[in-house]
C-alpha cells in the first residue's frame, strides 16, 4: 500500500438524493434555525430604528409616527407579505421539528422518527396554506 485515495466530501451533500428522513430533518432544522436568527436581527433593527415617535401622542393618534408609517410601508409590499408566509412556514417547521427532537432526546418513539418528520412537514404545509388568506388580504400587486 503506497498511498490511499481520499474521495473528499463528495459523499456528503453531493448525494442529497439519497438522504433519508432523519438527515433531511437535520438539514431543515439547521436551515430554518439560521433563517430565524437572521430574521431576529432584521426584526430588531427595524423596530429599534422606528421608535422615533415614542411619547408623541398626537402623531400616534394620526398614525403618522415613524413606527406606524414604517410598518404600513412594509406591509403594502407584496414581497413582504410573501416573506411573512415564508417566515411562518420556517418558524412552524422549526417548532414542530423541535418538539420531535425533544421526543428523540427523551428516547420516546425513536422508531417512528421518520414518520414524525413527515408529520411535521405536512402540518407545516397545512398551517402555511391556511395562513395565506390572512397574510395576503388588502395588498395590491
Amino acid at each position: 500500500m503506497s498511498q490511499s485515495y481520499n474521495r473528499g466530501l463528495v459523499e456528503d451533500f453531493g448525494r442529497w438524493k439519497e438522504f433519508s428522513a432523519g438527515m433531511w430533518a437535520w438539514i431543515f432544522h439547521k436551515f430554518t434555525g439560521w433563517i430565524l436568527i437572521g430574521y431576529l436581527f432584521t426584526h430588531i433593527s427595524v423596530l429599534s430604528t422606528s421608535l422615533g415617535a415614542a411619547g408623541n401622542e398626537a402623531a400616534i393618534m394620526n398614525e403618522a409616527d415613524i413606527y406606524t408609517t414604517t410598518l404600513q410601508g412594509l406591509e403594502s409590499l407584496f414581497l413582504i407579505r410573501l416573506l411573512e408566509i415564508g417566515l411562518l412556514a420556517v418558524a412552524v417547521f422549526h417548532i414542530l421539528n423541535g418538539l420531535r427532537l425533544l421526543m428523540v432526546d427523551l428516547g420516546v418513539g425513536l422508531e417512528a422518527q421518520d414518520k414524525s418528520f413527515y408529520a411535521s412537514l405536512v402540518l407545516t404545509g397545512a398551517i402555511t396554506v391556511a395562513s395565506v388568506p390572512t397574510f395576503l388580504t388588502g395588498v395590491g400587486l
Partner: protein
Amino acid sequence: MSTQQAEPDTQEAPEDPAMKGAESPAAEKQKGGDMVDERDESQAEFDGETVHIKVFRYDPEVAEKQEPRFDDFHVPFEKGMTVLDSVMYARDEYDSSLTFRHSCRQAVCGSDAFFVNGKQRLGCKTQISDLEQPIRIEPLPHQEVVKDLVVDMDHFYDQMHAVEPYFKSEDTPDASKLEEQRQSRENREKVKMSTRCIWCASCMSSCNIAAGDNEYLGPAAINKAYKFAMDDREEEDIKEHRLRILEQEHGVWRCQTQFSCTEVCPKDIPLTEHIQELKREAVKKNLKFW
C-alpha cells in the same frame, strides 16, 4: 499486470449475452478438455437474466487505475443472488484483479460492507433483486480507499478500542471456585441489540458528523460502550469511568440524531437510541440537586 487480465477489453463483459463465449477465448482454452460443455452451460446461463454492476476501481500501484473509475460487469443472475455474489462472479470470471474483502458470506464477519446504490450495505446480505440496475458498488465513504472496494479501517478500529470495549469488574469471583459471573435475564435483554455489532463500519461511514469530526467516537464505538456501561455486573465507579469517556467533547454529544447510522446498520441495532440513552445517563451523572 498482464497476468491479471486487466486490459480494458476483458474487464468489461459484453452487453450482448450471446457474445460471452467469444469474449475471452484465452480463459476458455485454459480450462482444457471439458471446455465445450462449460461453454454451453455458461451460454445457457447468459440466455437468462443478467445483472449490470458498476464497480469502483482504484489502485495506486497500477498506472491505468491511478485515476479512479467505474468498470461495468454483466453477470448472470441467479435466484437469491447477493451483491457479494455478483462481485465474486465478476472477479472469478472477468477480472481477477478486482479486490474486495469478504469472508463468511452470512453477515457475521462484517468484512464486506460496500456503498451500494448510495447506501452502506453488507454485500452478502443485500439481494440483487431488491436493487435498481445498474448497481453502483463503491467502497465505504469517509474511509480512505486502499484499492478498489477495500478501505482503510484503522481509524474505525482505533475508535472502537478507545471506549475500552472489554468487561472489567473489580470483584471477579474466586478462580478456584470456578464461579460464573451471571447476568440477569432483564439486563441481558437490555444490551441484547448492542451485542449484535459485527464491526462492519457501515454506521461510521454513513455518519455525517463522523465525516466532519475525525475524533468523534462514532456510532459503533458508542454502541460498544453502551453494551458495557449498561452491564449490571460492572461496579458503579467503572460505569462512571465509562461515562467520563463518552461525555467528552468528541463523545456522545457529537451525535445530532440524523439517524443515518440506524438507517444503514445491517444488524438493525438501534444505534441512535443507544447514543441518546447514554446522553441521558451522562446528564443524570452530572446533575446535582443541593
